């Protein structure tokens, strides 16, 4: 008996050490990035790893902004796209799920199977046709072309339906009808508030994935004023920043730091959301 408990103790220590190692591995690249963003290129060339920040932050900033990298422009465009597409995706996915849960209509089950089927289609595959279509109607540099497709988010509809089924009781809907409420009023004033927790979780993931998206914006946006943040980041690999190590690290840090802060603040909900998505999905 004693032997097994000591065995468990040893195992616990080993597991803890492995976990610490993995945690360091997760954090280390970002730490190097943050520290190096305050160091000069010469300092980085002498010793690329240091845990002591230097005082070249503002010098790096002026080098960084002196070229094509416009973080504020990228930030604003990414913000517009992410906020709008998240709002559209959550509202219309809940609406679609409501249509599937509350009403009995002939094609209901077929429609749900259809949503399950298209969930697997990756947007990348259809990109050539999408680009040609958008190009033909002269909308290539319009952010709306990256926002509107969010209205049809099959996996979010699936999640919302799974959540709504037990959460929304038909009795509430019925009694609202008796009180004379219209169908859209019932959806907006009764169903939406009930769905708030699910909407919050899905909103986080929708926002993050649209914030991080590179492929579609890279193809559709050619005007520098319309660039999103991931496209701005891709400029850091260009030749003009080749020898400016400090500035490149600073540019990367400027794009990663807001995400890291928001993530750490919301991590509890995000981790729970990932877990929830899998059980329901």
């Amino acid at each position: 008996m004693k032997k097994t408990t000591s065995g468990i103790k040893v195992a616990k220590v080993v597991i803890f050490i492995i976990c610490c190692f993995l945690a360091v591995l997760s954090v280390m690249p970002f730490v190097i990035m943050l520290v190096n963003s305050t160091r000069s290129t010469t300092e980085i060339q002498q010793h690329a790893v240091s845990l002591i920040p230097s005082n070249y932050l503002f010098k790096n900033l002026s080098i960084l902004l002196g070229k094509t990298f416009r973080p504020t422009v990228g930030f604003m465009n990414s913000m517009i796209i992410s906020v709008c597409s998240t709002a559209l995706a959550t509202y219309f996915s809940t609406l679609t799920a409501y249509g599937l849960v509350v009403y009995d209509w002939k094609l209901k089950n077929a429609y749900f199977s259809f949503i399950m089927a298209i969930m697997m289609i990756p947007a990348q595959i259809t990109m050539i046709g999408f680009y040609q279509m958008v190009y033909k109607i002269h909308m290539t540099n319009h952010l709306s072309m990256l926002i509107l497709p969010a209205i049809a988010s099959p996996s979010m509809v699936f999640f919302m339906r799974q959540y709504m089924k037990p959460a929304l009781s038909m009795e509430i809907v019925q009694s609202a009808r008796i009180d004379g409420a219209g169908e859209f009023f019932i959806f907006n004033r009764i169903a939406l508030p009930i769905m708030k927790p699910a909407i919050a979780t899905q909103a986080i993931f929708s926002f993050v994935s649209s914030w991080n998206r590179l492929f579609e914006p890279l193809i559709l946006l050619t005007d520098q004023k319309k660039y999103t943040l991931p496209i701005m980041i891709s400029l850091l690999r260009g030749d003009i920043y080749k020898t400016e190590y400090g500035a490149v690290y600073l540019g990367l840090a400027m794009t990663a730091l807001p995400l890291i802060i928001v993530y750490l603040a919301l991590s509890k909900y995000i981790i729970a959301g990932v877990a929830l998505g899998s059980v329901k999905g």
Partner: protein
Amino acid sequence: MNKKKKTGYAKYGYIFTLPFTLTFLIFSLYPTLYTAVIGFTDLKGIGKTDFNFLANPFENFQAILSSPTFQLAFKNTVVLWLCNFIPQLLLALLLAAWFTDRRFKIKGEGAFKVLFYMPNIITAATIAILFNALFGYPMGPVNDLLMRFGFISAPFNFLVKKNIARGIVIFIQTWMWYGYTMIILISGILGISPEIFEAAEVDGANSFQTFFFVTLPNIKTILLFTLVTSLIGGLNMFDIPRLFQNGGPDNATLTTGVFIYNQAFSGSYMYNRAAAASMIMFVIICAASGLLFWLLRDRDEAKLKKEIKKREREMRRAGKGA
């Protein structure tokens, strides 16, 4: 009366799902069909939109399938996916088994989960360029560390070695995704009824037996979910290989996603070839996910469902008869 009311509300089902339907038709179905059509045409050249169908309709498909670059890109994609998915899944399973085992209560479990998942939330573009800088030559951080600890005496140019570049892409993918997979597996394991574990314990099963004969079979659906989503993501891998080395060195990290992008949006802007390659990938993805579903389908459950449906039909028939 009751029936009439029901049909009265039924129209709202169509109205409420209409925005989804319309958006799907315009932004998803139409582009898919359009892509398929372009695959059979001569559409190429920057800014071109008009096209003619080719005399040999399958010319683009044949050209893509016999192109050594596409073959290499496809091979790379499969290798990069397999080599990141297998260690990622094993690591995630191991961590999930540890984190859910009641005998070890690991200190700081919550903090570990948060840190393991963190790379997944950061923009892939940032991560690709960050790793490009980390493995920089002659004086990147990795070289600096290796030299300081005496592993190498002179800086090593990682980024020009084909297999090392592949290895780094594989490492990035694994590093970004094992936390996500782990959280999903943990939630799957926590969803298993505790009674099953208790029964196994009573029967004297050790941790290995419990894991292989109780835990694994019970999270089969979730494993399938992880496998299929990872496969689809893996076959579309773009951001990391594109920004890490733009498919290089010497096409060693060229994936089909990067190949399609380069065909359509650089060089001679061959939309037709890119469209054909997209459709080939589309068919491969559908076939692969279909095969996985079929291989890992729950045979007993499928039987049960069939039985239930049969019963229902019989009941309905009986009901109609009566």
